[in-house]
């Protein structure tokens, strides 16, 4: 048997879960309650999280040396400039922290994308062996990859009039077929992933171990209340009109 507060917690969790699920029927008051709570909690969570981050950073490493302390204070001061946006006369100052953020971000992107997303992706293409006498099937697969990657790349050619060139039309077709197969595959995989999540929630609602068994009665009660009110409200409105 669990204590009362835990039990209340379970009822709250079940209520919020089902509240969000009711959007599947239509926009309604239960969904709006759950949505409002979610919105509030998430904003509160974000603030708590960021402040904890700042405090942890202060503890280690920023409070270790005087120079770093100055740096920390400076960061907070620059950070306060974000809020200049809310003042009409100095609003443009928010662009300074923004510029620092964007500049650093682009810098970090520039140094890594060329490796992880460009050269390291080209490299396995170069390593393809198109002729494996002992393994004709593998040769065929390699040739397909050898053709597919460049054709998809060329499909996105933006400038000039290359796409009107007849051989390019073939390349474009081939690229589209490749993409469609790839998209289908990714989509098929996602079905499993998404159902896994729902199954997890369903296991919670049914109180299947290790979830608390108290969740199941809560589920039936709250689901019944929500269903009756939703359908009842609809019928009532239909009768009135």
């Amino acid at each position, binding site marked *: 048997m669990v204590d009362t507060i835990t039990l209340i917690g379970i009822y709250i969790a079940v209520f919020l879960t089902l509240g969000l699920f009711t959007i599947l029927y239509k926009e309604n008051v239960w969904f709006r309650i759950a949505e409002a709570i979610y919105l509030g909690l998430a*904003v509160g969570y974000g603030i708590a999280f960021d402040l904890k981050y700042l405090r942890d950073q202060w503890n280690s490493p920023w409070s270790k040396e005087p120079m770093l302390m100055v740096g920390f204070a400076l960061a907070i001061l620059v950070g306060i400039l974000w809020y200049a*946006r809310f003042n009409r006369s100095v609003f443009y100052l928010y662009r300074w922290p923004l510029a620092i953020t964007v500049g650093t971000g682009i810098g970090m992107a520039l140094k890594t994308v060329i490796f992880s997303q*460009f050269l390291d992706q080209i490299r396995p293409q*170069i390593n393809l062996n198109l002729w494996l006498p002992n393994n004709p099937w593998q040769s065929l697969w390699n040739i397909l990859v050898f053709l597919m990657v460049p054709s998809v790349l060329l499909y996105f050619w933006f400038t000039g009039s290359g*796409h009107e060139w007849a051989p390019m039309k073939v390349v474009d077709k081939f690229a589209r077929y490749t993409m469609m197969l790839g998209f289908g595959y990714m989509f098929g995989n996602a079905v499993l992933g998404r159902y896994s999540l729902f199954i997890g929630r369903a296991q919670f609602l049914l109180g299947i171990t290790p979830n608390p068994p108290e969740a199941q009665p809560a589920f039936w009660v709250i689901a019944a209340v929500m269903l009756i009110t939703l359908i009842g409200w609809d019928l009532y409105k239909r009768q009135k009109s």
Partner: protein
Amino acid sequence: MFEVSQINLSDGFVAGRMLGLVGLLLIMLASAYFIYMARKGKVPKIRRIAGIDAIDEAIGRAVEMGRPVMCSHGIAGLTEATTGPQTIAGLGVTAYVAKKCVDVSTRLMIPVRQPNVWPIAADIVETAYRMAGKPQEYKSSDIMFLSTDQFGFTSSYIGILMREKPGANIMVGAYWAESMQLATSGARAGCIQIAGTAAVAQIPYFVLASDYCLIGEEIYAASAYVSGEGEQIASLAGQDFGRLIAVGIMLLGALLNTAGIKMIIDLWRW
């Protein structure tokens, strides 16, 4: 794959990273060259990108139906290496949409996830109103900060779609698992939808559930394309130049490799 060593670096150029540096400089300089040529009046022709052309149509539809327009720049921040640039690209599209919506006097709603992106979105819309000479019509409450929580953002976004029933829902930027929910809910609310992302895993949902889809790098081209400015369009020629290098090395390298010549792969040791 990553032979770059991070320990025991000595001062000077870093071995193993030179090919990257050369590649980076080549692509950047090529693009700078095309931009320079554009300033001199030589702007390359650009092919039509259906998804981007559809933005005007979508806004027009929303106006006809008397409904607002919803435009999202994705849910990523500005700093992450792969997603930050997508947010910037999304904001470029947002700027265009804002201008159009102000022109036709349609309400524009922008849902925001990252606190530090909110001021930019607000600035974009306010500037659009100011430039059209009607700053008093700007409402900061339409730049809606929803939540930093991924699914908190999603549930509110869906709620707004269902309640406000916008005529157009334009989403360009970095998206993760919420892509499917947003696109399906938009379709259910009857929006005409244009969606684009460079997050590969999310593209299939956008392809299936939206009316027009920008795939991968098309979103980076989008802000240049909609601006209609020569310099920006010219930068895309740099992108094509990089593409040409990639395709050339790939094809040649694999052929040589099959013939037993490992010349090109040795470049990776630079």
